[in-house]
């Protein structure tokens, strides 16, 4: 009884942090518009772009998720199965896209798609839609099909890391004897059957989670849509451009109506998707023995040629836009004679901070500090919430567990604009001094990463055979000692994955709508990039400086990942 009460505390704190801002925002918006959230949804169709944005958000999100799985699944498979040299470097490289500030990613992709670029030179003109793409547009009747394809590819690129991080560890820890058993049964003779009767049941919940998270990120996509498909709008983009005016009495009420309706509708759709993932995970989860990754990989052996080619191609896919970004940072345009010169000037300016309030170096240290703080908070909080959910499940209280599960995913389902408004209103009302606090950005970062942590740790907890815990209890280990000596080591893989995702997200996040953008000492690298790219770029060094700042972000991300991944495996049959 006491234990359960103690367990409830992290859940209550976490849910409180989510629900209070939402409540405040909704209350204010209802007040200002005189409308309920549900009537506000209906008025979305009054906005000239409302219905179109809803439709496009939905369609492109589903297609993006499907494409991401299609590209990511084979990679996760090859990585999970075989022994690779420098696996942690490969993983780190494939996770870099997830961290890239969207505006930079957009530039990177545009560089690949532009006239004279690598993609156009093989006849695929995604940017101006001539040739094959143009014919595609006219035959399908889908305008801007080139732009849409570019957007889908960019989303897939971005979210590749999710597929790999959800699915690969699962593949890597399934005992080989399971597959071996099924191969010897009549039903497992063909590869197709093995996929159908063995691999699919084993992996479907991880794949579903990856699909749904990609769907969510793509649904709420804003910057990539604006850059890659300028004629298209998502619901989040509509809310973001007008959202600043929301929540103000007697001023631009239609903006408040848009945010209230849009955020409610978006929230319902996304919560439903998340609920589906959670429900399916609970019902269909298969717990099994887990083996150490190195054992499983040794059994499958070295990668085949196909695997090597596949993973190499994926590395090219992951790194190409980033390489192009790096090149842009050292290539300065000379407009008077329409030529380019190579120079490190942009890097000098970035590092000394001549164009911005803080230098890239200061922003870098802020980024790292916030990322590590965020990781610690979200992993601890996420573990606490996940183990509470698991405890409820184990005691048969499945409905309670389900409810908490879905609620804890709320931060992902909410529009940034809505939450920003709520946090602003809440903090102002309850604790205004909080705005002066250096640590403030950790709160929204942690709120957004904790759902991932929960999503990753919960299946891991479920698959922990209770006999491990019971055996340790019989050997005299207290609850805390079992936590340290049994649960943590057996979940190490998942914990590291959760930690790296958390760091990744925090590094790349510049959730401008969450907190007052106090420029200056708090600036992180993505904020710096955003500031630079938002400027008029008459001065030809502005964009290269932004690219240099973004490149610095990439480098530090890479280093942090490689370090963190070291904790995942150690020598001697480690886990």
């Amino acid at each position: 009884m006491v234990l359960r009460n103690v367990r409830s505390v992290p859940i209550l704190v976490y849910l409180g942090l989510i629900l209070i801002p939402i409540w405040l925002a909704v209350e204010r918006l209802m007040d200002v518009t005189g409308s309920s959230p549900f009537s506000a949804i209906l008025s979305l169709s009054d906005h000239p772009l409302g219905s179109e944005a809803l439709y496009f958000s939905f369609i492109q999100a589903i297609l993006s998720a499907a494409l991401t799985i299609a590209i990511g699944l084979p990679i996760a498979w090859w990585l999970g199965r075989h022994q690779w040299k420098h696996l942690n470097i490969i993983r780190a490289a494939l996770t870099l896209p997830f961290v890239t500030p969207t505006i930079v990613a957009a530039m990177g992709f545009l560089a690949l798609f532009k006239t004279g670029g690598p993609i156009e030179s093989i006849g695929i003109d995604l940017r101006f839609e001539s040739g094959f793409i143009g014919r595609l547009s006219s035959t399908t009747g889908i305008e801007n099909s080139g732009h849409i394809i570019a957007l889908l590819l960019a989303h897939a690129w971005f979210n590749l890391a999710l597929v790999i991080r959800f699915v690969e560890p699962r593949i890597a820890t399934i005992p080989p004897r399971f597959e071996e058993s099924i191969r010897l049964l009549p039903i497992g003779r063909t590869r197709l059957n093995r996929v159908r009767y063995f691999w699919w049941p084993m992996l479907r919940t991880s794949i579903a989670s990856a699909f749904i998270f990609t769907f969510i990120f793509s649904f709420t996509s804003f910057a990539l849509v604006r850059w890659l498909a300028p004629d298209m709008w998502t619901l989040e983009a509509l809310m973001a451009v007008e959202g600043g005016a929301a929540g103000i009495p007697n001023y631009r009420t239609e903006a408040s109506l848009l945010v209230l309706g849009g955020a409610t509708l978006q929230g319902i759709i996304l919560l439903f998707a998340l609920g589906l993932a959670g429900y399916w995970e609970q019902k269909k989860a298969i717990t099994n023995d887990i083996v150490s990754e190195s054992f499983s990989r040794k059994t499958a052996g070295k990668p085949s040629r196909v695997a090597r080619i596949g993973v190499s191609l994926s590395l090219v896919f992951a790194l190409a836009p980033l390489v192009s970004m790096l090149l842009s940072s050292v290539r300065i345009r000379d407009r008077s004679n329409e030529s380019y010169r190579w120079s490190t000037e942009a890097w000098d300016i970035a590092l000394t901070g001549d164009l911005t309030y803080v230098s890239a170096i200061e922003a870098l240290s802020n980024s790292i500090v916030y990322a590590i703080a965020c990781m610690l908070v979200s992993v601890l909080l996420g573990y606490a919430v996940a183990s509470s959910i698991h405890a409820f499940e184990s005691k048969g209280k499945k409905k309670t567990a389900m409810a908490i599960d879905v609620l804890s995913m709320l931060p992902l389902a909410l529009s940034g604009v809505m939450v920003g408004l709520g946090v602003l209103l809440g903090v102002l009302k309850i604790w205004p001094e909080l705005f002066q606090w250096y640590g403030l950005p950790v709160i929204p970062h942690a709120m957004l990463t904790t759902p991932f942590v929960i999503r990753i740790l919960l299946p891991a907890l479920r698959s922990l055979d209770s006999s491990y815990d019971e055996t340790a209890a019989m050997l005299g280990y207290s609850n805390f000692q079992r936590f340290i000596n049994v649960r943590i080591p057996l979940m190490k893989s998942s914990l590291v994955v959760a930690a790296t995702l958390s760091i990744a997200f925090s590094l790349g996040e510049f959730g401008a709508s969450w907190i007052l953008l106090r420029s200056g000492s708090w600036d992180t690298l993505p904020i710096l990039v955003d500031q630079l790219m938002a400027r008029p770029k008459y001065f030809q060094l502005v964009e290269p400086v932004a690219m240099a700042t973004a490149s610095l972000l990439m480098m530090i991300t890479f280093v942090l990942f490689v370090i963190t991944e070291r904790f995942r495996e150690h020598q001697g049959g480690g886990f």
Partner: protein
Amino acid sequence: MTIEIQSLTLSYDENIILSKCNLRLTEGEILVVLGPSGCGKTTLLRAIAGFVQPDSGTIHLNGKILNELQPEQRNIGMLFQRPVLFPHKDVLGNILFAYRKKKERKMEEVDEIMKDMGIYAMKSQTIETLSGGEAQRVVLARALLTNPELLLLDEPLSSLDLDVRRQLALEIRTTLKSKGIAAIHVTHDHEEAAIIGDRIIEWNELHRLESE
């Protein structure tokens, strides 16, 4: 030194599993509880271990009442049907799990018991490479190192083949007897029961026996 169970009753979802069970064990005695699969033998052991709470009845171990104690406080060892070895440690690492603190480790004791159980040569192996019988030996070695006052064995030999089963049953008996550790072993196999036990009780008898 005795183990005494009085009137232990446990139901689950309106099914009565244990109905006023009575049991008594003397020091160093190995009791075998014989019964078909699914009758509730495991539940009995889990109740003694502390993983499930009985509805009524008491469990005494050497004069202590165990009912209110957590499993880790009962000083009871247990072997499960499947050998439970931690995949993140090798054989030696698993055995050393018997010691909660590094400084408590007594390596001579460890080496001795590994040699006795015939697993000394495997100490650096990973657990996936062990056969079923080898794995149970490791588990047993680990359990014994904690000097339990009582050892519970939940059909640990059922998944092994006949020769290994017989061999291991004999080894278990020999080891327990040499260390004077009392044990309750549950099984459905008559031959195994005959090899291991000092005394055999049928499952139904447990529920009829009056306390002496």
